[in-house]
C-alpha cells in the first residue's frame, strides 16, 4: 500500500514555519553565558521536529542540515558546549537558512546549496572545536547473528555496527545521570490489520536495533494453525527491550506509522535518579511542536503516550514483565487523562481561512436579512405586531452576538506581527553599530487576520526608520545626555472600536527644518509658505521624499513612507506623526478592527443612500451662505475653524439629481482622508449603522471613490465611500 505523503506537505510547511518562529524567539531570549536549559530544549525540539518531518517527506537537504544543527543543540543541552555570541549568531543564521530551504522546497525551487553548505560547515566546525571530550561510547557488538539459541531465553540481537556512529547522539548509547545505560521495554501488540496496511514489524525492529542493543521476545499465543491463518493478518506480538536511547522519543518515532494499528507501551526499565528531568522533557515534548502531518491528533496521542509511559514508569514495574496485558490495562486510564489534559492545554484546531470567510459571508447575509425584517417590523400593526417587534429585537441582539463571535474567530493577537521585530532590531542594531532596546507592549491585542497581514510591512518600515533615522549613535546619545541604549517602543491597544498601533523612539525626532528645506528645494512648498508642525510632518508621506543624507541598505529597502500611508489608508485606517525635537518621534496608526464590517453614517443624496465610514467623519453641519466662497479653478470652499475646505458635491460626483442644489438647504459632512479634509455636500443624514462590506471589485469593478457596497435593510444596494479616493477623484474633476 502506498501513501501519498504530498497531502501532508502543506501542514508540514505551515508547522515548520511556525516552529521556526518560536525557535527564533527562543534564540533571541537565550542568554549568552547562562542559557536557560528549557529554552535550549525548546530550540532542540524544533530542530528535531523539522528533521523528522523533512526526513519523512524525503527533503534530504533539510534533514541533513537540521541533523548538524540538532547535534550542536544536543551538545549545548548536555552542557558540553557553551552558548557564546558567535554560536548564537550561527544558530540565528540557521533559522534563516532553514526558512529559506523550506520556502525553496515549498515553491519547488532549488535550494541555495552554497549558503547551506557554508553554514553547515560552520556548525560542524563549532561542534568539532568544542567537542573535546570523547563521548562515552559502548563497544559496538559484532554483527554476527547466532542461529542456535536456547529455546526459552529471549533472543539477543546484535546491532549493526555500521549504524551506530558517534555523530548521531540520539543513536549512540550514552550514560544517564546514574551512569547506567537507559533500558526501555516496549510492548508492541500489532492489530490484525497492521501488515495489510503496509507496516512490517521486521522493519521496525531493524530500526530499533539501530538505536541500541535489542532483545526481542515474541508471543505466538494467538497464532492459529496454518489452515486457519489469514496470511495478511498479524497474529504475533512482541516484548522488546532496547538498550541505549536516551529519550523515549526516537523509540516512539519508529512506531509512528503504525499508530492506530497497534497497542504500544514504552517503559523505562531503569528510571534515572535525577527526578523530574526525564518526565518533564517527555511531557514538554508532547506539548511542543509536532513534527509529522496531523499535528492535533498527534499532539493528543503523543501526550497520551507520554502519560501512558510515565504512568507505567512510576509504577514499580518488575524487571521481568511476563505478560504485557495488565500493563496495558493500567495504562488505559492514564491515556484518558493524558488526552483530557492535553485538550485543556491547547484546545485549538486549525481551520482554513476560506472556511471562516465563508462563515463570515453567511453571517453578513443574515445581518442583512435581519435588517430587512426589522424594517418590515416597524411598519407592522395589529395585535401581534408588538410581540413580533420584541422577537425581532431579540434576533438583532443574537445576530450581533453571532457576528462578534465570528469576528473573534478571525482575530489574532498582534504578537504575530510583532514577533518579527526583535530579530530585525537586533540585526539592524548590529549592522548600524547602535544599541537598541526594543520594547513590545500590548501584544495580546487582537485584530483581524486580513488587517494583520497588511499592516506587517508598514510596521517594518516604521521600526526600521526609527532605528536607522530616529535613534542616534551611542556616542551622540551620550553627548546629548541620553542613555547610550536607544529605546524603540511598539505598542498596540484597542481604542474605541479601533486598533491603535504606536511606534515610538527616544531618538532625535523629525528635523522640521530639514524637511521644510527639502520640500522647498523640490518646490513642494512655496518659499514664503508657513506650515504648521502637522503639515510639515505630513510632507514625509509624499512619494520619493527622503531627508536621509545617504541611502543605506537599511533605509533603501522596503516601502517608502508614502506606501506606508497608502497601505494604512487602504485598510481604512490613518497614520499620524508626533515629534519632539531631541526627544523622539511617535507614529500612530489607527486601524479598524476588521475589514468585513464598518460603522457607517448613511447619508441621502437624491434618491440614493451612501455610507460614509464613521472613522472618516470629523463633524456634520448646516452651512450658512456666508461660509461659502468660490475660488477660481478650485471650486467652492467653506470656511471651517479658520481653514478653508473644498466642498465636494456628491450628487455631481455620482450623477444623481439632488433634492436641492443650494448648499444651505442641505448638510455638509466634514470628512478626512489622506490627511486632507473636505466638506461633503449631502441632502440629509439618515442614521448610523454597522454595514457588511461587499467587495465591488469582485462583484462589479473598481470605482474610484467607492470602497465597496452594502445591502441596506430595505434591500437596496448602497455604496460605501472611500474618502481618500473620493478626494482624488474630486480634485481631478475640478482640475479638468
Amino acid at each position, binding site marked *: 500500500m502506498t501513501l501519498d505523503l504530498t497531502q501532508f506537505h502543506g501542514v508540514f510547511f505551515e508547522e515548520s514555519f511556525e516552529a521556526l518562529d518560536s525557535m527564533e524567539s527562543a534564540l533571541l531570549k537565550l542568554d549568552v553565558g547562562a542559557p536557560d536549559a528549557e529554552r535550549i530544549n525548546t530550540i532542540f525540539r524544533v530542530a528535531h521536529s523539522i528533521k523528522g518531518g523533512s526526513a519523512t517527506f524525503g527533503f534530504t537537504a533539510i534533514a541533513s542540515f537540521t541533523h548538524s544543527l540538532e547535534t550542536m543543540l544536543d551538545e549545548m543541552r548536555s552542557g558540553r558546549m557553551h552558548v557564546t555570541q558567535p554560536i548564537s549568531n550561527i544558530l540565528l543564521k540557521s533559522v534563516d537558512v532553514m526558512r529559506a530551504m523550506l520556502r525553496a522546497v515549498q515553491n519547488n525551487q532549488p535550494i541555495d546549496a552554497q549558503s547551506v553548505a557554508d553554514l553547515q560547515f560552520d556548525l560542524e566546525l563549532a561542534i568539532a572545536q568544542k567537542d573535546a571530550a570523547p563521548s562515552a561510547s559502548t563497544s559496538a557488538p559484532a554483527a554476527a547473528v547466532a*542461529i542456535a539459541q536456547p529455546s526459552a531465553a529471549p*533472543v539477543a540481537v546484535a546491532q549493526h555496527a555500521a549504524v551506530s556512529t558517534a555523530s548521531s547522539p540520539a543513536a549512540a548509547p550514552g550514560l544517564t545521570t546514574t551512569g547506567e545505560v537507559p533500558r526501555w521495554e516496549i510492548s508492541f501488540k500489532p492489530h490484525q490489520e497492521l501488515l495489510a496496511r503496509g507496516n512490517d514489524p*521486521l522493519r521496525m525492529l531493524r530500526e530499533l536495533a539501530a538505536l541500541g542493543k535489542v532483545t526481542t521476545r*515474541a508471543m*505466538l499465543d494467538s*497464532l492459529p494453525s496454518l489452515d486457519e491463518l489469514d496470511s495478511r493478518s498479524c497474529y*504475533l506480538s512482541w516484548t522488546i527491550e532496547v538498550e541505549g536511547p536516551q529519550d523515549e522519543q526516537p523509540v516512539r518515532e519508529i512506531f509512528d506509522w503504525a499508530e492506530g494499528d497497534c497497542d504500544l507501551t514504552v517503559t523505562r526499565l531503569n528510571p534515572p535518579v535525577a527526578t523530574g528531568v526525564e518526565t518533564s522533557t517527555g511531557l514538554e515534548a508532547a506539548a511542543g511542536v509536532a513534527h509529522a502531518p496531523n499535528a492535533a491528533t498527534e499532539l493528543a496521542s503523543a501526550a497520551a503516550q507520554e502519560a501512558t509511559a510515565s504512568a507505567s514508569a512510576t509504577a514499580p514495574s518488575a524487571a521481568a514483565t511476563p505478560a504485557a496485558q495488565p500493563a496495558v490495562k493500567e495504562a488505559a486510564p492514564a491515556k484518558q487523562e493524558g488526552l483530557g489534559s492535553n485538550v485543556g492545554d491547547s484546545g485549538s484546531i486549525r481551520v482554513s481561512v476560506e472556511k471562516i470567510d465563508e462563515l463570515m459571508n453567511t453571517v453578513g447575509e443574515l445581518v442583512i436579512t435581519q435588517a430587512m425584517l426589522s424594517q418590515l417590523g416597524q411598519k407592522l400593526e395589529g395585535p401581534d405586531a408588538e410581540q413580533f417587534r420584541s422577537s425581532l429585537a431579540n434576533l438583532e441582539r443574537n445576530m450581533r452576538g453571532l457576528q462578534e463571535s465570528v469576528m473573534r474567530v478571525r482575530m489574532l493577537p498582534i504578537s504575530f506581527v510583532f514577533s518579527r521585530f526583535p530579530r530585525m532590531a537586533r540585526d539592524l542594531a548590529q549592522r548600524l553599530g547602535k544599541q537598541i532596546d526594543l520594547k513590545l507592549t500590548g501584544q495580546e491585542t487582537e485584530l483581524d487576520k486580513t488587517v494583520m497581514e497588511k499592516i506587517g510591512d508598514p510596521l517594518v518600515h516604521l521600526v526600521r526608520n526609527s532605528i536607522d533615522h530616529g535613534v542616534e549613535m551611542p556616542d551622540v546619545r551620550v553627548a546629548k545626555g541620553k542613555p547610550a541604549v536607544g529605546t524603540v517602543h511598539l505598542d498596540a491597544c484597542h481604542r474605541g472600536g479601533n486598533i491603535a498601533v504606536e511606534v515610538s523612539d527616544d531618538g532625535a525626532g523629525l528635523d522640521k527644518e530639514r524637511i521644510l528645506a527639502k520640500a522647498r528645494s523640490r518646490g513642494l512648498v512655496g518659499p514664503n509658505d508657513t506650515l504648521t508642525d502637522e503639515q510639515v510632518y505630513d510632507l514625509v508621506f509624499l512619494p520619493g521624499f527622503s531627508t536621509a543624507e545617504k541611502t543605506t541598505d537599511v533605509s533603501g529597502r522596503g516601502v517608502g513612507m508614502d506606501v506606508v500611508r497608502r497601505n494604512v489608508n487602504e485598510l481604512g485606517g490613518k497614520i499620524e506623526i508626533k515629534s519632539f525635537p531631541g526627544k523622539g518621534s511617535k507614529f500612530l496608526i489607527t486601524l479598524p478592527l476588521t475589514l468585513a464590517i464598518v460603522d457607517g453614517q448613511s447619508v441621502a443624496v437624491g434618491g440614493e443612500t451612501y455610507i460614509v465610514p464613521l472613522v472618516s467623519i470629523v463633524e456634520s453641519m448646516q452651512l450658512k451662505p456666508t461660509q461659502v466662497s468660490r475660488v477660481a479653478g478650485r471650486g467652492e470652499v467653506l470656511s471651517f475653524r479658520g481653514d478653508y475646505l473644498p466642498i465636494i458635491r456628491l450628487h455631481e460626483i455620482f450623477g444623481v439629481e439632488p433634492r436641492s442644489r443650494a448648499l444651505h438647504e442641505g448638510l455638509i459632512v466634514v470628512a478626512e482622508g489622506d490627511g486632507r479634509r473636505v466638506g461633503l455636500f449631502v441632502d440629509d443624514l439618515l442614521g448610523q449603522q454597522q454595514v457588511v462590506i461587499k467587495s465591488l471589485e469582485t462583484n462589479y469593478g473598481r470605482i474610484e471613490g467607492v470602497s465597496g457596497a452594502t445591502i441596506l435593510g430595505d434591500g437596496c444596494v448602497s455604496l460605501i465611500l472611500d474618502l481618500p479616493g473620493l478626494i482624488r477623484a474630486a480634485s481631478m474633476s475640478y482640475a479638468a
Partner: protein
Amino acid sequence: MKQRKPARKTGNTRRIAKASAPKRKSDRPVALPAECVIASAPGLRTTLLKRVGDAGNVRIDASAVQRIDTASLQVLAAFARDRRADGLPLEWLGVPDCLTEAATLLDLTTALGFANPGSGSSVRA
C-alpha cells in the same frame, strides 16, 4: 481454533532427515521464492498447507530467498509449529543470512525450528 491432533509418540519420525535425493514427488523440497513478501504469503500458505500433514520429512529450500517479511515468516512459523505439534519432521535447506537475521530479530528462530534440532527440525546452510 482447531483442536490439534495429539503429537504422535513414534520416535522414528523425530530423527533428522537425511539429505538424500527425493524419490517421490512429495519428497521435493518446498522452494521459497526470492521475494517472500506479504503479496506472496497467501501462495506460500497454500503450498505449505498441502504439506503440513505430510508424514515424511518436509524440506524447505530457502536458498533463493533475498528478502522476507513478517507476513511470510508468520506463515512459515505456523507451518513449522503445526508440524512440530504433530511430531512431524521439518528440514531447512540453504538458509541465507537475511532469513536468519529476520527470524532472530522477530524471535521466531525457535518457532521456525532453526534452533531446536531435538524437536525434529534441522537446518542446513
